[in-house]
C-alpha cells in the first residue's frame, strides 16, 4: 500500500498546476498504467473537451482510447456500464452534469444496481466525470450542482474535489476502483492552482476528507469552489477567528470521523456547498455530526448554499444566487 494521504504527505515531489492540469495528469497516468482504461465522451478527442480537460490526450493515446461519442448520453453511459461489466474500465465524460438527466436510467437502474441485484457477481469499474456549478453565465441547464442526487443513490460513490491535489488523487482512485464512481468537477475551479504530487502512485482513498487548514474556533466543511474561498477567508480572519477548513472531497462514502474530530475541537460547524440547501449534501453532513457529535456542539450548525433556485442567466441574478466567502463569513459570525 502506498502512503496515501489527502494532502499528498509522503509525496514530497510536487509541481504547481491547475485543477484542470491535475485531472489531465491523472487521466494520462492511468491511461499509461492500464490498457483497459479508456476515455469517452462528447468532444473529448481532437477538441480536447469542451472545458479543455482532456486536452491533448488523444494525440498521445489515439482515438481508440480517447474517443468521441455521438451526442447520446444514454447510449454511451449505457455502453460504459456494459463495457465495465465485461472487462474494461471506461472513463466517461458527461459535459455538464445537468445532462445526467438524459442518461439517468443507465446510472440509476443499471450502473448503481447491477452488482447488488446480481448477487455481487458483477464488478462495475465505471468512472463518470462531469462538471457542475454556476458562474459562467451558462443559465439553468448548464450550471447545476446536482451531486446530492447521485450521492444519495445507493451503489454509487461520489466525489467532488476542492483543490488540484484532491482532483488528481481522487480521479486516479476513481479509475482504479472496481465500483462506479462519479467525479463532480466544479468548472469555476479548473484554473485554480495548487501543489500536486507528481508521483504516479499518488492517490486519495475514496471516503476520506482532508483538513486543508487547521483552526480552533470553527470548522468549515466545504466542497469544490467553496474550499478555496473558505481557505482565503480563513487567512483573512486569522488573528481574529481561527478557522479550520476541511475539504469534504468524498460525498459518498463520507469521512464522518474527520468531521467529528474537528467539531470536537472547535465546537462549531459551517457547511459550505454549492448545491440547493433543501435535502442536500449539507443536510447529510449536519445529520452525521449531530447524530454522533451533538454534545461537542456549542452553537447551531450553519448551512451555506443555493437557496433552492435554479441558476439564472443574468450576471446580476447569478451573482446573487451563488454562495461565496462572504456568506461563509456571515455564517461564522452567527455562531462564533
Amino acid at each position, binding site marked *: 500500500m502506498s502512503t496515501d494521504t489527502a494532502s499528498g504527505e509522503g509525496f514530497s515531489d510536487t509541481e504547481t498546476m491547475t485543477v484542470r492540469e491535475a485531472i489531465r495528469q491523472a487521466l494520462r497516468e492511468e491511461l499509461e498504467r492500464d490498457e483497459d482504461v*479508456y476515455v469517452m465522451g462528447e468532444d473529448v478527442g481532437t477538441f480536447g473537451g469542451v472545458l479543455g480537460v482532456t486536452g491533448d490526450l488523444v494525440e498521445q493515446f489515439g482515438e*481508440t482510447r480517447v474517443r468521441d*461519442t*455521438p451526442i*447520446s448520453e*444514454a*447510449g*454511451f*453511459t*449505457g*455502453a*460504459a*456500464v*456494459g*463495457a*465495465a*461489466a*465485461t*472487462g*474494461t474500465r*471506461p472513463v466517461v465524460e458527461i459535459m455538464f452534469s445537468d445532462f445526467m438527466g438524459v442518461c439517468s*436510467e*443507465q446510472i440509476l*437502474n*443499471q450502473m448503481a444496481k*447491477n*452488482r*447488488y*441485484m*446480481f*448477487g*455481487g*457477481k*458483477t*464488478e462495475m469499474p465505471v468512472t463518470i466525470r462531469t462538471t457542475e456549478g454556476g458562474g459562467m453565465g451558462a443559465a439553468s441547464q448548464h450550471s447545476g450542482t446536482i451531486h446530492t442526487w447521485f450521492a444519495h443513490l*445507493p*451503489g454509487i*460513490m461520489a466525489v467532488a474535489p476542492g483543490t488540484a491535489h484532491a482532483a488528481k488523487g481522487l480521479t486516479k482512485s476513481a479509475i482504479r*476502483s*472496481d*465500483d462506479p464512481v462519479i467525479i463532480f468537477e466544479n468548472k469555476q475551479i479548473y484554473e485554480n492552482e495548487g501543489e500536486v504530487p507528481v508521483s504516479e502512485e499518488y492517490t486519495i482513498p*475514496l*471516503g476520506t476528507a482532508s483538513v486543508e487548514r487547521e483552526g480552533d474556533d470553527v470548522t468549515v466543511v466545504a466542497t469544490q469552489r467553496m474550499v478555496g474561498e473558505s481557505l482565503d477567508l480563513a487567512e483573512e480572519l486569522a488573528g481574529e477567528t481561527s478557522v479550520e477548513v476541511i475539504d469534504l472531497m468524498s460525498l*459518498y*462514502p*463520507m469521512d*464522518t470521523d474527520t468531521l467529528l474530530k474537528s467539531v470536537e475541537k472547535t465546537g462549531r460547524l459551517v457547511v459550505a456547498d454549492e448545491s440547493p440547501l433543501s435535502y442536500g449534501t449539507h443536510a447529510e453532513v449536519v445529520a452525521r455530526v449531530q447524530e*454522533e457529535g451533538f454534545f461537542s456542539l456549542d452553537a447551531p450548525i450553519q448551512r451555506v448554499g443555493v437557496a433552492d433556485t435554479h441558476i439564472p442567466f443574468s450576471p446580476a441574478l447569478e451573482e446573487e444566487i451563488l454562495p461565496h466567502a462572504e456568506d461563509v463569513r456571515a455564517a461564522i459570525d452567527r455562531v462564533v
Partner: protein
Amino acid sequence: MVSIDIETEDGQREILRRMLTIRAFDTKAGELFADGELPGFVHLYIGEEAVGVGAISALEEQDYITSTHRGHGHCIAKGLDTYKMMAELYGKRDGYCNGKGGSMHIADVDAGMLGANGIVGAGPPLATGAALTAQYKGEDKVALAFFGDGAVAQGQVHEGINLAATWDLPAVFVVENNHFGEATAMEDQHNVEHLSATAEAYDIPGFTVDGMDVTAVYEAVKEARERAANGEGPTFIEADTYRYEGHFEGDHQPYRTEEDIDLWKDRDAIETFKNRLVEAGAVTQDEFEEMRDEIEAEIEDHAERAKAADYPDPSEAYEDMFNANVPEINDFAARMRADGGER
C-alpha cells in the same frame, strides 16, 4: 454452450430440448405463481421459444446477451442452470443472484448472460458496451441484445444501436415482436408495419423473420454474427412472434381473445419444429414425448428442491453493494436493527 449446428440431428435435438425446457420451466413457474408460491411478478416466455433458442444457438459460447423482463427463455437458451433459476424465482440463496434479483434480474456474467432487465430499453446500450469491450480487446465475441416491440419506442434503444453502428461494433439487435407492449397493441405504439425498418436509419442490415420458426431465426442470427465478427457492424433483426400468456401472470388480458391466441398456437414453434424433424426422421414422436417427459420431471424436481432450499440470512441484505468496504452500510444497518449498535 457453443453454437449448435442446426444441420445435424444432434443439433436439431438439442434445439428441440432447449425449447421444451423453456416451455416446461415457464409452465411450472406460471403454476407456482398461481398457487401463491412465488413472490413478486412473473413474466413468461411461452410461445416465444423459437426466438431465444434460434438466436442463441447461432452464437458462440463466449458471446454475450442482454435480456428483458421476460428473460427465463434467454437464460435457458444460454445454458443457465434451471435449478439455480428456480431458486432465484423463490428468492432463495441458491439462486443466481443469491435471492437479490428474482425473476426479472437473473444474470450470469461468466456465462455471457448480462442480465434480465426490468427496464425494457436498457439492454441495447449495455450490449453495445459489451461489443465495445470485444472490439477494444480484439476478442472474438459478439453481443446480442434481446428486447421487445415496446422497447423500440424508448430512446436509449436507438442511442445504443446508433453508437454500435457508428463504431462498427460486433453487436446484434433482436427485437422480439410479440405484438404487445404490456397491454397495448404493437400497432398502437409504432407507425411502421415492420420494426426492422428501424435499421434503415442506422444504415445497417435489417430483416423481419418468422419468430415462430426456429430455423429462420437461427439462420438470420448466424449471418448477423458472422457479419459482426468480421467487423462489418451490427444487424437489426425483428422476429415476429407471440406470447401465449399475459404481460404478467394474473393479467386479465382485455386486449385480446382466446381466438387470437389460438391462431398463433396453430403455428406453435415447438410443435412445428418437432413435426418437421419427425417427417425427416431425425426424431420419432415417441422420442419427442420421452424427451418432454424427462424435461418436465427434471423441472418438477428443480422446483421442489428450490422450494425446500434456504432463504438467505437477513444479514445478507447488507452485502454486495460495493466491491470496496463502505462503512456507512454496516453502521446504518446496526443502527436500524432492534439490537442497536455503535460505530
